[in-house]
């Protein structure tokens, strides 16, 4: 055989092996995405009701002075909670998150301390590679997240806010707009804007319990104090679930693309291989024929 066919054969096998891996990874991502969507669905009834309760209570109380979580103050230190992935190979997911963080930090006011905490080791590594400060990393928690763990994390942040260590809390996550569209986004969680609560209360309006006087136990202040952190926990939890759904969508798409381009590559390699093979056969034939001719 002519030179080159052996090498081509080896390359084809190599690409085929990679394709096997990427298509397996695509299937895994699809499965995980399905499971996550189920989890997001089961969390929704709880989250909606908490939001409704907070909105109703905030509306009936109308006193932001009840909880420091509702008051904005002079901002000296901003805490950013960045939700990224623990692993790579998910297209632009981590890069987009990192770009969002860069944009947020670039917009930051002068003289305001910026703290960055990252969920997911891959995002943390990318941020560090860009020379951005990372104050804390939570590794290996994103995918195995459960509500109790999110609760503890959020409680820690709320405590920091109440102690005056931080004056604002932002979450950088990837919003899951639809199966085809995800976008990195920033939301401000602390201080809670009482107006946005009132707004959601109006949207909730028209319900049959409108105007009903609720007995509140132990009292409105304590209940609100208990409800507001819970509200934040639910917000952070749903941001993480949404980011995870985005992550696995991105990973699935990336792996699908890889599988498809491996297909293309195998196709063109095979064509090249066949041509080389044909060429060598033709050459051999020519040699045999010309040899026979010479003997005549």
């Amino acid at each position, binding site marked *: 055989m002519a030179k080159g066919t052996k090498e081509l054969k080896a390359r084809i096998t190599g690409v085929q092996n990679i394709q096997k891996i990427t298509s397996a990874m695509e299937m895994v991502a699809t499965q995980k995405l399905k499971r996550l969507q189920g989890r997001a669905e089961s969390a929704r009834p709880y989250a909606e*009701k908490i939001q409704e309760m907070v909105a109703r209570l905030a509306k009936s109380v109308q006193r932001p002075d009840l909880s420091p979580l509702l008051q904005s103050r002079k901002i000296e230190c901003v805490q950013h909670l960045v939700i990224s992935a623990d692993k790579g190979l998910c297209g632009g997911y981590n890069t987009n998150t990192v770009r969002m963080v860069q944009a947020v930090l670039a917009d930051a006011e002068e003289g305001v301390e910026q703290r960055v905490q990252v969920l997911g080791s891959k995002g943390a590594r990318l941020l560090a590679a860009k020379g951005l400060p990372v104050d804390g990393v939570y590794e290996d928690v994103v995918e195995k997240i459960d509500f*109790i763990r999110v609760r503890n994390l959020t409680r820690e942040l709320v405590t920091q806010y109440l102690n005056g260590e931080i004056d604002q809390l932002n979450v950088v996550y990837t919003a899951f707009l639809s199966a085809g569209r995800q976008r990195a986004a920033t939301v401000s969680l602390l201080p809670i804007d009482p107006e946005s609560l009132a707004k959601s209360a109006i949207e909730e309006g028209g319900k049959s319990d409108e105007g009903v006087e609720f007995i509140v*136990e132990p009292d409105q202040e304590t209940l609100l104090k*208990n409800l507001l952190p819970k509200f934040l926990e639910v917000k952070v939890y749903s941001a993480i679930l949404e980011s995870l759904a985005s992550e696995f969508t991105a990973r699935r798409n990336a792996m699908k693309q890889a599988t498809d381009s491996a297909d293309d590559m195998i196709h063109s390699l095979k064509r090249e291989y066949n041509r080389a093979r044909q060429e060598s056969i033709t050459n051999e034939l020519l040699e045999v024929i010309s040899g026979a001719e010479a003997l005549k």
Partner: protein
Amino acid sequence: MSDVSAEVAQGRALWVEMRSPDGPIWSGSATSVILPSIKGTMGVLPRHAPLMAALEVGRAKVEGGVPANPKDASGTVQWVTGDGFVEIFDNRVLVLVDFADNTEDIDVERARAARDRAKARILTYEQGVDRARAELSMRRAMVRIQHSRP
């Protein structure tokens, strides 16, 4: 199903819904509900006044329960619940808790073992993620042991 909603509307039964962030726990009608409010154990009967209350870690109980999903437990059902809230309105009791474990599903021996394991880990770990995780599982195990006894 329509019988139940009529009974609830007439104030002869309660409609109970228990939810956690990990999913719905139980829903159905009941004759009474007992909940661990932070001011003390609270009993709820039909025709209760509209109420919102904070709950603490403890034991919740439904009596005369008829679950909406026939696969769920019926009759007297008890859970160990995490902290949360309850809203009572129009004979509907909505319970929102961090977690809820049916007391019958709790294996006290296993919970004890989990507690001891967590304790040992706390003693070996420095402050950090692993330590926090161990403390958390110890707390949960202890709550289970404490509240699983009838």
